[in-house]
Each structure stands twice: as C-alpha cells, then as structure tokens.
C-alpha cells in the first residue's frame, strides 16, 4: 500500500514537472511573437543602434545615421515597439559587431531590449549596399536578415522593405511601409487641393491642385486611379484621374456626384449620385459609366465603404430619420442598420481585416471616432475631449487609423492605433488638412 502511494506521488510530480516545462517552453516561444488581437498594450522593447559604415567616409556615415533613424521611426510608427534610447546602449558604436556570433547579446538584454536590429552600409559611388538583421536578444538568434543593393536614392525604400520583413516575421502579415495617404488641404477659402504623402507623412505632393474646390479623394486598390469630387465645372461632379498618366474620366450628371469608394481589387467604384433628384448609391465602371443602382430609398444615401471581399458595403442613410450607418449585401440585396447609439453617424470605413467599421459620431455637439463590430457588437469610442475628430480610414493591415482632428486648432491629419492609443499628428501643411484616405499596399518600394 505504502509503495503504491509513493509511486503515485512520483507520477504526480512527474506530470507536474512536464506541465511546468511545457508552459515555460510556450512562454519562451511566445517571447517575440506579437499578439495581433491586442498588441499595443505590451510594446516590445527594440534597440536600433546606428548602422555601421563599412568603408568609412562622410557619405556613408551620414547614410548610416539616416538609415538607423528612419528604421527606428518607421517601426515605432506601427505601435508594436518601444524604441530604446541609444544614449543608454552599452556598446561602443565604433567597434561593436553587427553579425552574430560576434554580438554580445547580454549588452542588449541588460538595457531591456528583446529585439535588436543591426545594419551595415557600404557606399560605392552611387551604389549602396545595405545589410540588415533582426535578432531576438533573449533567444540569441537571427529572426530575419537581408542584403539590399541598389542606387543610393532607393535607400529609403530598402529600409522600408526590411521593415515589411520585420513585421511579417513577427505578425504573419505584411507591413504598411509601401502604402500612402491621400488627403485634402486648403490654405484659402473656396479652394481645396488633393495631396498625397508616404505612410509616415513624408514628402507631401500635390495630386490635384487647380485653384478649384476638390473633395473626398479615394484610391483604387492598385493605386493607379484616384476618384474625387470637384467643382471645376461649377457643381459637384465626380472625376476619375490616373495617378501617373495624364488621362481620366468624368461623371458630369445633374445634381451631386460624390463620395466615391473603389471596390477592392476591381476597377469599379460606388458613388452617391443625385441625378434622379434623390442621392442614391450606384455602382460605376472605372470609366464612370453607371452599371447599376445599389440603394433604393427616398432620402439621403451616401458614403459607401466596401468590405474587403467586395460583397458588402457600409453606407450612410437617413431612412430612419437621422443619418445612421447601414450594411448592404450586394448578393442578397438586404440592408440592415448597424448603428443605434447617437443621432448622427456618418463616414463609415470598413477595416481591411473585415471585422470592424470605424465611423464619425456626432453627439451633444462633439465629433469623435467610434469603432463597431460588423455584427454590431463591441462599440468603442476612440477619441474624447480632443476637438473634432472625423473622417477615419484604416491602414491596409487594419492596425492603424488615419483621421482628421482639430485638437490643435486648425484641422490636421492624425494617426492612431486600432484601439485608440498613440494618437499623433502625421504632418503639417499651411491651412487646414482633412478627409484622409489610406491606400492599399502599393508594392512600390
């Protein structure tokens, strides 16, 4: 009897040991994987020391510093990482090694880094060679390493390609570093221009700047076309313009032709047209010809936004008395109301992940961004007590939102994480900026 008792205890101890071992292993394995369901609360500490100039020389040293700063800022932009201060690093920037096994990982774990990116830059004439490596400092192993070689003016693109690799390695989905943001800017009354910039606000460029009132820009999925509303002919007409070649199409019907929204991965778009006397949503070809009507309801129907599979769209309708957001299935033709809180819900933006819709809610004189599940659950408000916040648009991976905010006074373009944290300004131009739209991944690095 006693013998059995002792062996049962050993068995229990044995099982307990195995369980503990499994849990600990799982803990270690999850060390550098990002939980995409709520990743922004526990940012991963990341160290990006200055890149090493491989041959020396002023040009190379400058590129080395620029590259490290750009990579750090770009990864920080995603909201997944906490960038550690270089001043606290224990390494000697002149002599430290950028390739394991030469790396002393304890130097990094001591300052709290769980991830490390090292870089080496070689500049030969106009050609730059850039080596980048992402290390897990705890497991002391290489996660991903790449070498890029090309013209020096493609340097920024190289850094961003590696950033995409980092995000892919850690989350399983591609990063947003090859996406762009299009928006409206106005520095004098009655004139609104359309501009675009990189995902981080870099290099703003005019897209439509013709001394007219231009509104509501929208990118096609392939990034080759922009649709927008313009008063160039004295009334709100819809224009479809190629982004690089000088060609385009126009919808010059009676009434308002507004709020374009391209169908994902197709050269078709939905827009609100009121040529029959009542604003309804129609499906149009990429050349502006009406294919068919999508809504049938007297009263205002406007602002379509497509689901990522292009089968459903969210839109604004006043059919129940106040502007609310509805979802329509194009196959079944059925519409259902999505928003019930508040008397003014507009500007829906369907997340590329398919599960959530961001929109603008006006309640008690305050204008704020809210997010709701496509099934109507999980309503949250993402902005509060920070001026008027409107016009949300998701990043192509559904992890970030771009929107406009008047919290500083004049309307500016802001970015925040999908859960509403890390709200920061994207860029500043003279006058006011508004109506931002985030492109797909354009693959143009």
């Amino acid at each position, binding site marked *: 009897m006693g013998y059995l008792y002792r062996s049962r205890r050993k068995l229990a101890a044995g099982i307990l040991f195995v369980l503990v071992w499994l849990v600990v292993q799982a803990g270690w394995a999850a060390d550098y994987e990002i939980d995409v369901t709520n990743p922004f609360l526990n940012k991963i500490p990341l160290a990006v020391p200055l890149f090493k100039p491989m041959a020396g020389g002023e040009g190379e040293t400058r590129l080395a510093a620029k590259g490290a700063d750009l990579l750090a800022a770009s990864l920080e932009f995603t909201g997944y990482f906490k960038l550690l201060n270089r001043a606290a690093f224990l390494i000697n920037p002149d002599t430290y090694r950028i390739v394991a096994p030469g790396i002393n990982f304890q130097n990094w774990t001591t300052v709290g880094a769980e991830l490390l990116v090292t870089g080496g830059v070689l500049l030969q004439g106009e050609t730059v060679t850039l080596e980048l490596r992402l290390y897990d400092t705890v497991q002391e192993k290489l996660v991903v390493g790449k070498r890029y070689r090309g013209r020096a003016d493609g340097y920024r693109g190289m850094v961003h390609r590696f950033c995409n690799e980092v995000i892919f390695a850690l989350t399983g989905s591609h990063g947003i570093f090859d996406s762009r943001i299009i928006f409206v800017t106005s520095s004098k009354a*009655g004139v*609104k221009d359309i501009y675009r910039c990189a995902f981080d606000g870099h290099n703003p460029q005019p897209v439509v700047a013709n001394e007219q*009132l231009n*509104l*509501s820009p929208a990118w096609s999925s392939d990034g080759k076309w922009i649709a927008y*509303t313009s*008063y160039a002919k*004295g*009334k*709100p007409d819809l224009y479809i313009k190629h982004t690089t070649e000088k060609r385009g199409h126009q919808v010059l019907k009676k*009434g*308002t032709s*507004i*709020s374009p929204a391209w169908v994902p991965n197709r050269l078709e778009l939905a827009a*609100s047209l*009121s040529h029959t*006397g*009542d*604003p309804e949503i129609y499906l149009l070809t990429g050349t502006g010809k009406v294919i068919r009507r999508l809504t049938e309801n007297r009263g*205002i*129907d*406007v*602002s379509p936004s497509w689901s990522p599979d292009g089968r459903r769209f969210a839109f*604004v309708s006043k059919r129940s008395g*106040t*502007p609310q957001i509805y979802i329509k299935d194009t196959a079944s033709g059925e519409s259902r109301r999505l928003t019930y809180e508040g*008397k*003014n819900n*507009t*500007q829906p933006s369907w997340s590329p992940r398919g599960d959530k819709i961001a929109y*603008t809610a*006006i309640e008690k*004189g305050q*204008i704020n961004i809210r997010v709701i599940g496509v099934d109507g659950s999980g309503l949250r408000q993402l902005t509060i007590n920070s001026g008027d916040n*409107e*016009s949300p648009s998701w990043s192509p991976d559904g992890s970030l939102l771009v929107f406009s905010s008047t919290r500083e006074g004049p309307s500016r373009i802001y970015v925040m994480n999908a859960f509403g944290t890390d709200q920061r300004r994207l860029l500043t131009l003279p006058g006011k900026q*508004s*109506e931002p739209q985030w492109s797909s991944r354009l693959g143009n690095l």
Partner: protein
Amino acid sequence: MRKSRWIYVALLLVVPGLLLTTACAKKKAPKSMEPVQSEQTTTDAGDVQTGDLDEAARQKELARNLFLNEDVYFAYDSYALDGEAQGVLKRKAEWLQTNGDAMVLIEGHCDERGTVEYNLALGDRRAASSKNFLITLGIDAVRLATVSYGEERPVDMGSNEEAWAKNRRAKFVIK
C-alpha cells in the same frame, strides 16, 4: 401750311426727339450716375446694378434685391420647409411670376457640423425641396437649376448656434 398743321408737325418731330434723348440719357446713366443701391451680393457675379431715380424702377430693384438676399432657412439636419420658409418661397414665386424670363440657380448650403459628404447630399436636398415647392406654386421646373455647396461656402465663419443657423440655407441666384 396752316398754323395748326405746323403744330402737329412740330409735335411729331419734338416728342420722339425728347423720347430719344431721354433714352440715350438712360443708356448713359450707368456711367455717370452712382447706383442707388450698393448691395454686395457675392454670388451675383457679372450682373451690373443700375441705379435709377425712377420710382417704378426703384421698386423693381428693391424686389430684385429682396429676391437675391432673402434666403430660405432650415433646421439642423433637415430639408423640411417650415412656415417661414414657405413664406419666403411664396415671395420668390411671386417675383418669378412677375419676371417671367428670369432663370435661377438655387444653392443648398449646410452648417459646418456634419461631415463633408453628408452635407453635400443634405445641401442638395435643401435646394431640391425649395425647387419642388416652387413647382407646386406654378413655376416652370426648367427655370430652376439647383446646386449643393454642402458646408463649403458658409456665409458666417463662426462656430456657434447663430452662425450655424445662418449657414443652413437655400440661396437664390439669377443666372
């Protein structure tokens, strides 16, 4: 000729002569005289105000200015016409009946609250409501064009109830 005949000849020559000179004077008036009314109507591009001391013409001018400056107002997020709005439109209809060949553009506007695209659609409906009411009062639809400016052309740049109320309007412009 007999004296009486000469009188007739004289009248025949003089009266048209007088009329002709006054007509010429009328044509020259815009250059030499100040306009009686000097209203600023920002949407009245290209139209010349003619000042005239003739009472009938002055009344005509007052009526025209009222037509241009009296806007139709709307409640927040609404394109319904209340009693006052209908009164304004009745006066517009009267003017349009009197000035049978006038063609107009009805502009629909919104206050800054509400979002850009929704307000473009709302402005469109405000212009359409006004047009439809005028049609029920017998005005030919062909004479009434509409356009929406959404929240893009406020008349008052303030951010308060008073400014917003002024901006929620349908404005009439003579083409």
